């Protein structure tokens, strides 16, 4: 093989690699990306069944229902609209009513969302009031400050 031919081969190889990488990226940004909505946005949109999406909001108070030890039903809300969610599996540690959560899954019905993943959100800076109450109850919090 002449030096020139070898070099040409290398350049062609490089272009093939780059081209296939670009094609991979283009394909995957269309296929493997899930959209994120709030419950009220969903009511306005026509969501395709079986399309994987994410929904973010709060777990509605008094909506949590334990069907069995591994299947749960709850509502996710942004105060304007709420969506009924079913989930099988283990809920994250931080999951509870009134807390922020993001769920991932698909609509099985027009109004029932089947979650495959549940992520609970926890904000470090804005602690739930109950923590402060406990702080005070256990006497950690000094009342006589000035």
């Amino acid at each position, binding site marked *: 093989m002449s030096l020139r031919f070898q070099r040409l081969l290398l350049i062609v190889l490089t272009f093939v690699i780059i081209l296939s990488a670009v094609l991979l990226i283009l394909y995957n940004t269309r296929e493997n990306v899930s959209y*994120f909505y*709030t419950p*009220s946005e969903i009511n306005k949109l026509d969501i395709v069944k079986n399309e994987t999406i994410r929904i*973010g*909001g*709060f777990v509605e*108070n008094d909506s949590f229902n334990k069907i069995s030890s591994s299947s749960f039903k709850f509502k996710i809300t*942004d*105060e*304007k609209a709420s969506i009924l969610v079913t989930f099988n599996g283990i809920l994250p540690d931080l999951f509870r009513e*009134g807390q*922020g959560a993001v769920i991932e899954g698909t609509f099985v019905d027009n109004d029932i969302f089947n979650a495959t993943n549940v992520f609970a*959100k926890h*904000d470090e*800076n*804005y*602690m*739930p*009031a109950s923590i*402060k*109450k406990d*702080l*005070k*109850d256990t006497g950690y*919090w000094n*009342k*006589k*400050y*000035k």
Partner: protein
Amino acid sequence: MNRIIILTPLIILFIICIFSLTYLLSGKDPNKPPSALLYKDVPNFESSSLYNEKEIIKTRDIKNTKTLINFFASWCSPCKIEHPLFFEIGKKYPELYLLGFNHKDPTSDAKKYLEEDGNPYDFVGVDSDGLIALEFGVFGLPETYLINEDGKIIYKLMGPITTDILKNEIEPLL
């Protein structure tokens, strides 16, 4: 040709920075879902004064004045941090009606708290069972709402007020 190749990282840098900056300035924060009550009528409530059970405040009492509603409690530590700012607000905007709701607190604790720290509120309502907070959709303490003259909620803040928030977010609305 060579120059153009060397320029690409700079161009990519510009693009990334412009997008990030637009994003940052748009003030979108996926952590904070928009409040449903914003630009809606203030919920109906009725509450008695902390100091005098016969003195009642109702939703219609705060119509026709701008009102700042603050949910607080003696056991809430961020409330202590924002507390001094309400004196400042009261001094700067005397016509603004400062309404405090004492949330799930024994009356004696609440009174003691306001004695030690001072009472910046024009009226302190009792919300011992947390029903008013439920109406407002309070998730945790402290929370602050600004109501305009038409009785519409025009601002909601979760967490304590800071000087920055006061200057940049609340004062322009006053």
